[in-house]
């Protein structure tokens, strides 16, 4: 059920990837409304993600501006966030923004110390002929890739 408070909270974007709302990312977990009081649960993408504090403040400000007087934002670790919770709309927005969306599902990610991974599609030219430059990119959630077809570097949102 989508309440008014959910609609408000769902407009908040990730400050690191401003095309994605917290709803697109799947980190908005619950919104409970009780009169003018509202309780929001969000979950961090990564344990050390510094964007979480900004997101918490933005959610609080937005709900207050919409007339909610008592706003509580709770950060929950369980169940742990996974890229599988990212919406299809979110993945599409990511690609349009120039970041390759997670390739495959976390649930199906192979384990073991030396692993094979699914090819990552270039968000610019759709080529699958890409290579990883660095496993850790500009933020914890991204890796740095390069497209061998159009020669452009790009960020890839890692499966987690």
């Amino acid at each position, binding site marked *: 059920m989508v309440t008014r408070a959910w609609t408000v909270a769902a407009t908040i974007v990730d400050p690191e990837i401003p095309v994605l709302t917290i709803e697109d990312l799947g980190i908005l977990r619950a919104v409970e409304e009780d009169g003018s009081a509202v309780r929001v649960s969000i979950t*961090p993408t*990564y*344990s*050390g*993600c*510094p964007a*979480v*504090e900004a997101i*918490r403040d933005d959610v*609080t400000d937005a709900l*207050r501006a919409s007339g909610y*007087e*008592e*706003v*509580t*934002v*709770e*950060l*929950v*670790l*369980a*169940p*742990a*966030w*996974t890229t599988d919770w990212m919406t299809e709309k979110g993945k599409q927005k990511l690609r349009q923004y120039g970041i390759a969306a997670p390739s495959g599902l*976390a649930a199906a990610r192979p*384990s*073991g*110390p*030396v*692993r094979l991974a699914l090819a990552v599609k270039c968000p610019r030219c759709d080529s699958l002929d890409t290579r990883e*430059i*660095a*496993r*850790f*990119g*500009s*933020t*914890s959630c991204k890796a*740095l890739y390069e497209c061998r077809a159009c020669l452009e570097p790009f960020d890839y949102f*890692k499966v*987690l």
Partner: protein
Amino acid sequence: MNEPDSAHGAVSVDAITLSAELAGEADAVASADVAEYALWLGDDALVLAQQLGWWISRAPELEEDVALGNIGLDLIGHARSLLRYAGTATGRTEDDLAYWRDEPEFRSAWLFEQPNGDFAHTIARQLIASVYLVELYSRLRASQDATLAAIAAKAVKEVDYHRDHATQWTLRLALGTEESRRRMTLALADLWPYVDELFVDEPLVDRLEGVAVRPSTIRPAFDAVIDSVLAEAELVRPAGFIAAGGGRVGRHFSTLGYILAEMQVLARQHPGASW
């Protein structure tokens, strides 16, 4: 200053702090034993994170500055959750525990206190640490303590990437040039004496049956993964002396004092400062 809240209208102040809720079980209070165990794991993560931060601007390439910085950030996240939870037993915050404890009060194992050395030493330390942490957290997910289980379920997915990173570099250094292979071999030999301490069953573990992961039970899985990486890297598992250890009872390697001095100096010179 008569009405300090007037600028904000009729709103109540949210009684929330980030750290109080990070662990998923917001109201859970750790027993003394659980708090001690959380310190083991939290201090390992904190000390390693602090050490990895040194590499930012000094790694062999820009991408590695970023990678090691991000790995450190994940570990800081784990340390925050674990220290916050440990602090509930004695009414201390995560910052109290990170900045205001002295060396003998830390519970980190010697492996995490080993100096960064050259890049190969850092990678060897990362390999041992991340293989250990993946096995540890994957089992801790089943802990009877809901907070520890939640922290572990989150952390295991991240340390899995750290293990991947360490594995890739171990292979590249070991199978790279003659010089990189020489250094990787030397680094592994230098770090190996500190492996055994990770798997010692202290008396605390007996008291936390079902809550803590019994360290000795992880060893076979740790060895199997390490052996598979070393086989691919055409390296052999080192043998030789075993370091004394003692981190879990507050006896530390000589480096810890220096690590803490750098980490704590600002907080101690300006108590309560924020920005």
